[in-house]
């Protein structure tokens, strides 16, 4: 039994108007518990639409979506919130509360977490993303720095303790160090609680570090779905999706073209080790 299952899903924006636009075309997909999945594709390929469909914020114009084997349209929205938590692109634009505490408490309160557990829940969520509860809880969400805002926004979803965490470009517009930090916090949370993760990102480096399975979208269709190592075995798929290869893989490609056997090496470390081994191999063979 798959946790999330899509069957021939199609989604058309502004259906039956001259402006209609088919953003998702006939997608079928199964997602199991505990998987970590990356969704990549160039801008406008339908990534955000797909995750909104999975979260029940949009209903498919054709096809069906099942969450725990139950049609997504039959789920009550609050129940669904407890299963699927989604952090939108630029989530800090949705702040409204006077204090950080109230901002984080909004979600848990809505899904019926009792008041006496609320403080614990908020404290835990803020700590998870590396914010100090005591220092920050009474501040205004609007006066935080960009990175702090982003973490707060993520904490406000983590506080609801969803089974599936969906993130839409969680590190867009952050500095490189901030990016890595946030992803580390998220990873720790996901792994320690055995949660399911769906990560949308333009940053292939981030995807490589975070997920095991990737889905590549192009013009609303899935053109690749499988383990990440397999994707980087065929560069054509990445080119077909018009994505930028990560620097490290560009290097690997150049070296491979020169005859070094580097299949499956993803990090600087692995590549160096392979080259060293290869050179030794050659020199032994020559002598």
């Amino acid at each position, binding site marked *: 039994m798959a946790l999330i299952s899509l069957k021939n899903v199609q989604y058309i*924006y*502004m*259906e039956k*108007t*001259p*402006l209609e636009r088919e953003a998702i075309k006939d997608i079928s997909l199964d997602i199991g518990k505990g998987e970590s999945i990356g969704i990549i594709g160039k801008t406008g390929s339908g990534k955000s639409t797909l995750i*909104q469909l999975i*979260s029940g*914020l949009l209903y498919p114009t054709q096809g069906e979506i099942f969450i725990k084997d139950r049609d997504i349209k039959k789920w009550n*929205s*609050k129940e669904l*919130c407890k299963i699927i*938590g*989604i952090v*939108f692109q630029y*989530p800090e*634009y*949705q*702040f*409204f509360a006077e204090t950080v505490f109230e901002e984080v408490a*909004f*979600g848990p309160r*809505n*899904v019926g977490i009792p008041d006496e557990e609320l403080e614990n829940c908020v404290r835990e969520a803020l700590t998870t993303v590396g914010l100090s509860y005591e220092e920050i809880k009474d501040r205004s969400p*609007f006066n935080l720095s960009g990175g702090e805002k982003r973490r707060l926004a993520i904490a*406000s*979803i983590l506080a*609801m303790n969803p089974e599936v965490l969906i993130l839409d470009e969680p590190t867009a517009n952050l500095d490189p160090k901030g990016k890595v930090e946030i992803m580390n916090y998220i990873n720790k949370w996901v792994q320690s609680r055995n949660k399911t993760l769906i990560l949308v990102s333009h940053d292939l480096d981030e995807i490589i570090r975070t997920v095991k399975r990737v889905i590549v979208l192009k013009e609303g269709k899935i053109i690749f779905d499988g383990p990440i190592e397999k994707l980087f075995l065929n560069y054509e798929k990445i080119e077909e999706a018009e994505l930028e290869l990560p620097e490290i893989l560009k290097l690997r490609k150049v070296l491979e073209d020169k005859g070094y056997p580097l299949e499956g090496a993803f990090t600087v470390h692995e590549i160096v080790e392979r080259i060293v081994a290869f050179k030794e191999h050659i020199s032994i063979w020559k002598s």
Partner: protein
Amino acid sequence: MEVLKTFPLGQYIPGNSLLHGISAKAKIIVSFWLIIIIFLLKLNFYSYLLFFFLILLGILLSSLPINYFVRSLKPVYFLVLFTFIIHFFFGEEGGRVYFRYGIIHITDNGIKMALFMSLRLIYLVLITSLLTLTTSVLELAQAIEDLLKPLNFVKFPVHEFSMMMTIAIRFVPTLLEETDKIIKAQKARGAEFGKGNLISQAKSLLPIIIPLFINAFRRANELAEAMEARCYRGAKGRTRYRVSRWTIKDLVFLTIGILYPILLLVFF
């Protein structure tokens, strides 16, 4: 939920049709003229039919699918029905009486009025849709600015007025899109809207309204800075990138649009 889908404003559909190509000034003048004429039109079958031909011509010249015009009637559908029923059952006395019971009476004149008054409403909507479907907001605003220019003599700040209008209209779709996004984001945090008593309903809207306002102010600020950075300082010495000139096409359009209805008034 897509707010945009249900938004009743006539929306610009880009295209290359003859009507799209006519200058916005000519289209505005003709539209206003036609709206005035509708109210002067004699209440008889022929003038309404011949007037409809003019609208039909416009629809054909716009090369837009018919269903777009049908859709534009949706917001006034109820109003048309209401007008029809009022005139039909409680309308003017006169002519043959078909039915009478208490205050309800169906008469020749009543039926006639019911028909023509509903048609009036429909024509009004169709004419405005023809204008807004084929003219972009920017063109409209510039045309209005040009047409209002004479008001400069009475110290009316025409340019500022039209700039304000352009900006306001320009940001309607942006705000709608943003509202849609915020609603989704708060729903994802378990928010429910429009439940419970009046106070809790109003309260449930705060998580939408507050971010909307804050973002609108932020955006206004950014826009003002961007405009200042490009040395915008009002109308003084400002020229346009696209200067609209009258072409033969516009003049023909204007002539037909103005003369045809006058002929209708005179002969029917």
